[in-house]
């Protein structure tokens, strides 16, 4: 390994900076292009009076800068009270709590299930189809049932939001389980035989060989799960009568869409930002843990 590393040309500092600048530049260009696309579409449709697929005006497609201005404006007009962004970020933090708890439960549970199924072939053959089937059940159906079942049994500190976390966990565990199984079975055969020849037990093989081999797979799953847990939390909030999260704001703003279209868009922006930050956290964790992520995975 050391000799190979030495063969790589050492990049001069200016080169690194130039590449970083190029990356930032591309991101800005993409953002500008998206902005142009939105505003251009808007302008063209209004100009031509086209009504297909929908009538374009300030209500159906507000200016992007108006949406961001709405975020900064006071939530309640008259110059009093918090800014909309403050209200929404507070809601996002509450939803993040549910999503994070659900993600943790789902990831740990999903991993444990994956380990179990990877070791017992019979169990895997019997259970995996049902685990797949569980994900074909619409979450909108599962959510109210979880609320009705789990809520009465939860202690006061977990009431309402605990049930939402379980719904988020339901969306989280599946990719983790499936990828854990695949990852654990992806360990190098020769390495496995070597371990066996040293009389290593299953437990030792799992932690020393299979688990490290599975890590890239698991992180690929965690990245999917991270955003899914946010979606699960948002959907879970709807039947659980939670006024503090982003879900309540979504209902509220969709009701008043006619008069406050920017509010719903602003909520969308924050909800998207929440999902993206979950994804980024997992990405950073992956960069720290897996130094050698094969690019050809998922």
């Amino acid at each position, binding site marked *: 390994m050391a000799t190979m590393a030495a063969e790589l040309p050492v990049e001069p500092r200016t080169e690194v900076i130039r590449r970083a600048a190029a990356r930032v530049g591309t991101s800005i260009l993409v953002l500008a292009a998206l902005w142009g696309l939105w505003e251009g579409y808007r302008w063209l449709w209004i100009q031509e009076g086209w009504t297909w697929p929908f009538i374009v005006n300030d209500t159906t497609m507000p200016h992007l800068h108006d949406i961001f201005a709405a975020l900064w404006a006071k939530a309640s007009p008259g110059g009093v009270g918090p800014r909309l962004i403050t209200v929404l970020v507070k809601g996002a933090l509450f939803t993040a709590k549910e999503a994070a708890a659900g993600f943790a439960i789902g990831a740990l549970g999903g991993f444990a299930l994956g380990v179990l199924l990877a070791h017992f072939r019979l169990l895997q053959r019997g259970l995996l189809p049902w685990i797949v089937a569980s994900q074909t059940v619409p979450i909108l159906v599962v959510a109210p049932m979880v609320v009705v079942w789990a809520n009465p049994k939860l202690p006061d500190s977990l009431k309402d939001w605990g049930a939402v976390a379980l719904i988020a966990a339901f969306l989280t565990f599946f990719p983790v389980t499936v990828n854990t199984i695949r990852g654990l079975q992806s360990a190098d055969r020769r390495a496995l035989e070597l371990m066996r020849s040293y009389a290593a037990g299953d437990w030792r093989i799992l932690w020393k060989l299979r688990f490290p081999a599975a890590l890239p797979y698991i992180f690929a799953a965690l990245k999917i799960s991270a955003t899914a847990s946010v979606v699960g939390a948002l959907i879970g909030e709807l039947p659980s009568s939670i*006024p503090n999260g982003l879900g309540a704001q979504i209902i509220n703003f969709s009701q008043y869409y006619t008069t406050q279209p920017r509010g719903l868009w602003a909520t969308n922006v924050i909800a998207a930002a929440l999902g993206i930050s979950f994804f980024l956290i997992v990405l950073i964790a992956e960069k720290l843990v897996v130094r050698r992520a094969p690019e050809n995975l998922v």
Partner: protein
Amino acid sequence: MKHGRYWIGGVAAFATAIGIWAAVGTAATPTKHSEQKLTKITFQLKWVTQAQFAGYYAAAAKGFYKKAGLDVKIRVGGPDISPEQVVAGGQAQMGLDWLPSLMSARDQGLKLINIAQVFTRSGMTEISWKDSGINTIAKMRGKKVGNWLLGNEFELFAALARAGMDPVHNKGVTIVKQPFDMNLFLNRQIDAASAMTYNELAQVLETKNPKTGNLYKLSQLNVIKMSKIGTGMLEDGVFTTESWIKDKKNQETAKKFLAASFKGWIYCRTHLKDCVKIVLSHGPTLLKGHQTWQMNEINALIWPSPKGIGLMNAKDYAFTAKTTAKYNKLKKVPGHEAYRTDIAKAAQALMKKQHLDIYGKTWKKANVKVTPGGK
């Protein structure tokens, strides 16, 4: 060695996950219960926080519940929440919903019972543009008529049927499912739209006409009120389960709850602005102008209350029962067994002792100006 590093990293990742779990778990430490003498009850609203429920929020904010010895938790509703299911499932002791919804739930076997009819009259209207000439239900023949459906359509259907149309089978009229917002109507994709006096009607008036840049005016609209044309049904009422209310102790609790809630509504009758403020404190993104309009219109659905707030009007009940049975295909027309008036009467007696005016005969609607965008 290399594997060892992975191992530590992996454990660290999961430890962080557990850490987050533990942190959020402890972050939500239970609120302390210093006042243990208060009777705890949960009340399920029909919809998200808005002035439609101001009376209950006012009763909480003004300490009326506490004074009555109650610790009331108000649960908000939403599109996926059926108050009947929540109350039947024991997650709340009492709930608020339109009477037809309660009747339908009963018909499906839920043992629920109305104990107070808070709204005296219906807030449902069907609106159309004045220039369309559709100023009666009869003129909706052959037109596209909007409604939210899912149990909100009975009043409109009864009115259309009376005018000789068959809305159930789209004969003589085309029923269009209307979303929560009023865009279909504003864009003239439908000829008439359902609108509650306290919500959607205001939403239309708060919108600027893109052609003129001015707000739409009430004079540009035909507003056909169901309560005026005789097909109005009973809306917001308090209900509970038959088994819960059987208990004498719970009857006492319910009586106190109703009296305190009615007191909240009486407070809002005279303190419009204050009640709007209370509602806004529970919904920081709600708009003041819109909620002020709503508060005023909600008051008009309760006051004046000829029988005193909370008491069921048997004639209106019968019409609601008959219409719901017809359009929601109930197994039988709900009779007297779906409501009781003794608790509301006891609450009224309690309030009379406190010299509260439970009728509001002299109440007059305030003149609330519509604001652009509801601000």
